[in-house]
């Protein structure tokens, strides 16, 4: 029987992007299920979202849950990172499902810098690679800035298609927090 991986994120682009990325390595005998649709980041803190999650867990019975959040700060902004971890810890207590948090340092777009060749090829840019993505402030703004005068301009909604083409192994090797997250997902799945 397929294992069900439940996804909860700040918006549909984030969850779909991570799903496309993970499917490159975790695709057999699993199915991905979006647990809460049409949600925005700030709503994740609300009690009613937590109640929604409980109802959807009962209905969709995920084997594991992946939470995807943006820290809105770089790796040195410990307070922001800690806030998100605390949110996850509190939520975990209320759910009877093994779960893991993908805490994007600053935001999801940071991962695009971990395999920047794909972006450069699609948008005809020449953004420098080999950067520590955990130090990039406002990565989305940077991508918008870089493409502002180009025929093809970056939009947030481009993320899922970009992630479809990105190399997950490169991201694992270039991004420490994603590597840690991926290892946790594997661990949880093998424990099921």
């Amino acid at each position, binding site marked *: 029987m397929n294992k069900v991986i439940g996804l909860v994120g700040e918006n549909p682009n984030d969850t779909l992007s991570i799903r496309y990325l993970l499917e490159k390595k975790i695709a057999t005998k699993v199915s991905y299920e979006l647990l809460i649709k049409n949600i925005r980041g700030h709503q994740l803190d609300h009690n009613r979202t937590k109640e929604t999650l409980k*109802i959807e867990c009962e209905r969709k019975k995920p084997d594991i849950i992946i939470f995807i959040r943006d820290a809105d700060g770089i790796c040195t902004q410990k307070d922001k990172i800690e806030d998100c971890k605390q949110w996850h810890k509190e939520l975990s207590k209320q759910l009877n499902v093994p779960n893991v948090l993908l805490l994007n340092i600053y935001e999801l777009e940071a991962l695009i810098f971990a395999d920047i060749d794909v972006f450069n090829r699609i948008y005809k840019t020449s953004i420098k690679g080999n950067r520590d993505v955990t130090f990039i402030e406002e990565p989305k703004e940077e991508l918008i800035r870089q493409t502002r005068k180009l025929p093809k301009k970056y939009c947030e909604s481009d993320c899922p298609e970009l992630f479809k083409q990105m190399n997950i192994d490169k991201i694992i090797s270039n991004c420490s927090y994603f590597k840690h997250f991926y290892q946790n997902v594997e661990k949880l799945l093998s424990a099921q």
Partner: protein
Amino acid sequence: MFLKSIVVNNFRSIQNARADFDSGLNIIIGKNGVGKSNLLTYIFQNVSYHAIVSRPPRQRANNVEFEYSVCFNDTDENLNELTIYFKREKVVTNNELEYTRHIKLSKSVNDTALYGDKNFEIPATTEFSLSYNESTAEFLTEFDVLRKFQTQYVSFEIPQDPGWLAKSVKYEIDTEYNLESDMLIPHFAILLDLYLTLETNFFSRIAKNEAASKIEDLDAEQIKIFFLHSFDSLKVKNDLENVLSKYSPISDIRLNPNINTYYAENKILVENLIIEFRVNNAWIPWGHLSDGTKRLFYLITQCLSVTDGMLLIEEPELGIHPHQLYSLMQFIRDQANYKQIIVSTHSPIVLDILSPDELHRINIAKLTPKGTQFHKLSDAQIETAQKYMELVGDLSHYWLHSDLEDE
């Protein structure tokens, strides 16, 4: 009386679909383009006495096949159910395009069949009317109950020509009290009521006026005052005003006080009759109302004009502020105690009007390989919806953040 079910064949996105309804309020949800409006249009065009008995407008005179059931209580409070199957087909006879009609009726009382199917074949006629014979007489008798079943439809757009609301009306009254006006029959049903009762009220005021038993005894100013007072004392106007002030930004309506009255060739001419609306303490004409206020007025007046039958409303939320929409839904809910109201919507506020024991009032429209289909919530969906209402607060949360329409 209410529409219990309808089976629609070959109409736009609908190939063959059945929709079931309850008395009172019904809410249809579904994504864009799945066929919600098609169903409402079809019901409006076909669920009536005249749709079957009368000649259809040229643009709708095509092949039609449908079946529907209506329920009503008789004088002894028995629940009657009348099921009508109707098929109209084009035939060409002597190079003339004509139509044959096949109508099948069945009736039950308190769920017990009163009689088996009664079939009526109406052969092609160029007149396209029921020729009166024994068979059609029986048909008309059985079918007569539908005569009083009114149907009004509030679609996306309000009528382009709202008649009396948008342009002034001219009356001519001769000394024999014959009255002529250049007003066309308004699209807004309630205005017809206003118009007719205004005339009656006006003439009864003249009749009661002892000082002027003849119309020529009245001066122009008196005529003007009669018109204004007649309008102000209309029950239909006052009832409408009460509702409008509660559920719309319109707090009052009146006849424009600058009516022109004068004598010409043994006739009294009354010109510049036009309705004005009080919004934010200012009197303004129809053309100055916002689009949202116009639609509110249209929706409210159409709803009030149905006394026994059905009101079909396409997306009541269009152009309406959320607070106003809450209040409008309260009005619709109240009105649904007395008539059937079928609403299509994309608005969470509209769906949230339902309580946990009213979830059977939801119809979900979906586009499938078999065309548009309609279904009520399954037991599992009702259970989940009730959980959402209890634990999360709103039914719409289930709609917005889960898969209510996709299951």
